[in-house]
């Protein structure tokens, strides 16, 4: 059976910490960093990287175009 795995890359310096990606991720992949970026924002990161299915929901709703999404089918 093939398994779909995804991954996101967050441009942390551009992230404004709005949390909309986190809220809209169906797999609870995303969390917010405790640290802030140079603008003072807590930025998004993959808290549970293995959960990501590459659905792009987070990237699609991100108002700042901060997230890039990758997806790969793995044969198990």
């Amino acid at each position, binding site marked *: 059976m093939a398994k779909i*795995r*995804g*991954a996101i*890359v967050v441009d942390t310096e*551009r992230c*404004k*910490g*709005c*949390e*909309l990606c986190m*809220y*809209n991720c169906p797999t609870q992949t995303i969390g917010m960093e405790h640290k802030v970026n140079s603008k003072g*924002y807590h930025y998004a990161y*993959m808290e549970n*990287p293995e959960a990501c299915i*590459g*659905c*792009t*929901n987070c*990237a*699609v*709703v*991100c*108002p*700042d*175009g*901060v*997230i*890039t*999404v*990758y*997806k*790969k089918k*793995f044969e198990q």
Partner: protein
Amino acid sequence: MDINEIIKEENLVYRKSAVLNDKVFNFCPGCGHGVVQKLIAEVVEEMNIESEVIGVGSVGCSVLVYEFMELDVVSAAHGRAAAVATGIKRVMPDKYVFSLQGDGDLAAIGTSESIHACNRGENITMIFINNGIYGMTGGQMAPTSLHGMKTATSPYGRNEAMGHPIRMSDVVAQLEGTYYVTRQAVHTPAMVRKAKKALRQAFENQKLNKGLSFVEFVTNCNSGWKLSPIKANQWLDQHMLPFYPLGDIKTEGVIVTKDK
């Protein structure tokens, strides 16, 4: 399994459009304006019409659209984007012309220009960001503010004496010149995807010389509403959408009957 096996160019499924440059949007965190700008960029990129597009910005939080998009853009005065777009399109009928306006811009000071561009059926795409407030100037009441809504100029809630919230899309749908009128939102992934289709349609109509396409986006202004982005989107679902229901209002020049 190493995440770097996934993060490879050949596995890419989503990246910010190349029509957007690297400047950071001036919007507040979580603002719907950003998503709409992304969608415009994506549609233009997918249609591969960068070199044929002239955008018209307006005065409101999206005023700096020319900073962020790698497109030729003319920045209109407050309320006048529809007239500016008319001027451009009339002398450049082969270009794609879109305008991007807020609700204060389009439905208050620019009412006349908006209505008449629609009534003339200018072959353009009018994009309308309805966040129920004047975002840029600090959260004053807009013509689209809901009854009871607290804003900087209705601190005890909008009341009848201040006028009623106006559904501009429904008003312009009444006019003979509008070919396509739709109301969309961009705060959930599904909505964004649907909205993008609508926007694409609106651009395609220009190619076919169909007349005016009017795309409303109901978005949050979390700063103006004084809510966190997530709370703002919830409020949007609970209060804005019942009054501004989503969906096509007029397609192919015909008003969509509501009973269906």
